[in-house]
């Protein structure tokens, strides 16, 4: 135990020194950006909960169900992200060579690393959960002790996926040490997604069905059903109950809280013993097998002698890093599922009015997805040059040119993605072409701005000593990039809502189109984007050129 605390302390000291190096302006901008984001998310949940409370009979039930669903989805996501981060925390991190050489017991190394891994994999999630907890509590006028106890329960809850993910990895690495990281990820993802799918199939919590029915009796039946849907064995359900009972000040909270606490401890203990048995062994085995090398004959085997080479290098480095393309693959699969889910149209999609609304909501959603993708894949791209940046800085190529190459390439990919998504989703929604025409044009600007924000901020806030892109994206710089991108999308949606609303009231309420308003808002959008495209790139290049490296 004391060894564990020692290792933990080393982490905290290095964290403290990185906080100390921040200046006042940075700290204030952190607080501002986080404040705005937390406030916005809080408001969003608050509105949803308030609305649900006002819906008779099923509203409150639905509210609890949504909480449980959200925690269930987070559970799966955290499981997946824990798997990816723990492969590098437990096997590829350079520090391990040192730790294993020191007279520290493997169990202590495991606990310290588990802690580190959970923090890395979960803290972004916690930022979304906090506003959720607060808005839920405030909507239901929960007693004061609700807040600390709810937050504490959620933190305990977040440890479970970490223990499961690491145990699975230790076992699989020990049994099959020859497996490459890529294949380990494949197998575990297949396993987890398969089980999830199976579980959902059995329990069939067909939440969306409610929107497809208007009959009062059906609604009642549905609400009845919801309360009895399985899942009583899932920790996510307990967390939902904990929040529910806490908010009513009910004593039944103790039962679920103790249940969660004991189950989490059991998981930690089991994982700890598995680690003692498997971790060191698998670490050594994997090291042995990975030192074998093989010859590679890629496109860059040949000499081209122009800037194309730099682009090829970026692509090769990307595809040779499993963390990168596995996560991109997951995003892709989720997007495909999303697009196809649009096909199963609930009834009011068939009304033209709703189609337009859905199409606009879909546009907003796609923009948010791209904002996330940008933070995960574009923001780290300067940091990932690592000390190669020495080479670039000392050679006759300007940083502006490097940024230009990266910018154009990322823009190209982003535009293809966003236009493809818009096109297919709108075909399925059957949007009116007159309305649709606005979206692809706006999307080009959105793509150009998002790439600029992430690349520019990535150049302003590079982190050359970290080689794991998901950690770079989950670090302070990445979180700020995410918040700024999301803020940008928010403003975009607000501006574009003006012409969209105008179009709607023209088509369905037969009000006249207000051309000055439409032109003004579109011109405003263009102006806004000139600023968001040029600004971040310019500032990023300037700040990078001034930097000592």
């Amino acid at each position: 135990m004391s060894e564990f605390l020692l290792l933990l302390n080393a982490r905290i000291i290095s964290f403290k020194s990185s906080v100390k190096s921040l200046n006042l302006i940075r700290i204030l901008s952190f607080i501002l950006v986080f404040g705005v984001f937390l406030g916005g998310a809080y408001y969003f949940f608050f509105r949803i909960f308030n609305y649900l409370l006002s819906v008779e009979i099923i509203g409150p039930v639905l509210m609890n169900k949504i909480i449980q669903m959200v925690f269930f989805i987070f559970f799966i996501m955290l499981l997946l992200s824990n798997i990816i981060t723990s492969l590098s925390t437990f096997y590829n991190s350079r520090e391990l060579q040192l730790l294993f050489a020191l007279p520290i017991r493997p169990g202590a190394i495991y606990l310290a690393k588990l802690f580190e891994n959970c923090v890395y994999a979960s803290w972004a999630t916690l930022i979304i959960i906090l506003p959720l907890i607060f808005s839920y509590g405030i909507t239901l006028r929960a007693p004061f002790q609700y807040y600390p106890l709810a937050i504490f329960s959620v933190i305990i809850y977040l440890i479970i996926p970490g223990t499961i993910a690491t145990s699975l990895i230790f076992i699989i690495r020990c049994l099959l040490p020859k497996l490459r990281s890529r294949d380990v990820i494949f197998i575990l993802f297949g396993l987890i997604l398969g089980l999830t799918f199976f579980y959902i199939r059995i329990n069939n919590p067909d939440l969306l069905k409610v929107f497809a029915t208007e009959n009062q009796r059906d609604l009642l039946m549905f609400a009845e059903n919801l309360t009895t849907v399985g899942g009583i064995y899932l920790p996510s359900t307990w967390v939902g109950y904990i929040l529910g009972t806490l908010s009513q000040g009910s004593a039944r909270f103790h039962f679920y809280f103790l249940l969660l606490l004991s189950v989490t401890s059991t998981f930690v203990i089991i994982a700890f013993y598995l680690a003692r048995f498997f971790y060191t062994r698998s670490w050594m085995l994997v090291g042995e097998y990975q030192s074998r090398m093989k010859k590679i004959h890629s496109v860059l085997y040949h000499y081209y002698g122009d800037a194309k080479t730099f682009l090829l290098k970026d692509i090769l480095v990307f595809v040779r890093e499993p963390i990168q393309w596995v996560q991109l693959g997951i995003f892709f699969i989720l997007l495909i599922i999303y697009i196809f889910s649009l096909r199963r149209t609930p009834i009011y999609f068939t009304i033209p009015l709703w189609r337009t609304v859905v199409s606009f909501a879909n546009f907003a959603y796609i923009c948010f997805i791209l904002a996330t993708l940008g933070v995960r894949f574009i923001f780290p791209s300067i940091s990932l040059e690592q000390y190669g940046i020495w080479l670039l800085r000392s050679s006759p190529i300007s940083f502006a040119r490097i940024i230009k190459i990266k910018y154009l390439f990322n823009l190209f990919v982003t535009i293809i993605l966003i236009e493809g998504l818009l096109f297919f989703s709108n075909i399925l929604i059957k949007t009116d072409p007159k309305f649709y025409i606005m979206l692809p044009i706006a999307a080009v600007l959105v793509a150009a701005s998002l790439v600029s924000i992430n690349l520019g901020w990535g150049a302003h806030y590079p982190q050359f000593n970290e080689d794991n892109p998901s950690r770079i994206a989950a670090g302070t710089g990445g979180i700020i990039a995410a918040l700024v991108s999301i803020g940008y999308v928010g403003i975009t949606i607000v501006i574009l809502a003006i012409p969209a609303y105008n179009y709607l009231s023209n088509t369905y309420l037969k009000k006249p189109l207000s051309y000055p308003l439409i032109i003004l808002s579109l011109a405003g959008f263009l102006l806004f984007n000139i600023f968001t495209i040029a600004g971040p790139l310019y500032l990023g290049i300037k700040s990078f050129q001034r930097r000592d490296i």
Partner: protein
Amino acid sequence: MNDSKRLIIKDLKKEFNGFWALKGLNLELSPGEIFVLLGPNGAGKTTTLKLITGLLHPTQGEIFIEGINIKESPIKAKSLIGYVPDEPFIYPKLTGREFINLVASIYRVKKADYEKRSKELFEKFDIGEWIDELSEGYSHGMKQRIIMCQLLLHNPVLILIDEPLVGLDPKTARTVRETFLSLKDQKKTLFISTHTLSFAREVATRLGIINHGELKFTGTLEELAEISGRKNIEEIYLKLTEE
């Protein structure tokens, strides 16, 4: 301005958060010189080299390469430089060959030159089939050899090297030494920082002793021997850096 000088450094100063790592360095190097900078840990050697290559920005002072002010036309100046940092980095997910191709492309080496020189260099530095394996599995010496190849491939006239011999086996170390001497004969200028005194004795045409951010002495080995009153290079070094 003296155009026949390859490198001119005027009153170069560097401050890190109130700490002066370099306190006014003046130096001129001509073609065909091998200047070796000696000094204790933390004396300011790496800082000097990084300032010349543009990795760091000077707090004060000017640097000219072939008469070109590096602050005014950095790209033009940098195309004349070759730099090897103290901890050579190769992208771990690239092979040695891919890395060399990347660097040569950035320096716009012509294809014909590339083919001719790469063949010579691979032979000279005994590059094996491992050049087509991912560099994450290379030993320190293998990386150093790849770095030497990429350095010489773009044919720089001013070569800056921080600690060239760390991790090289005796045979490669000798190749490096011979390469440096032949570069001198081709009228290139080398600026080398090292702790290996025997190496300094064998290749240097001029030596500099730096301590606490100040260039205390410069001169040939004979001149330094006279100043210090010692004969052996180790004795000279210890005498001149003592304080």
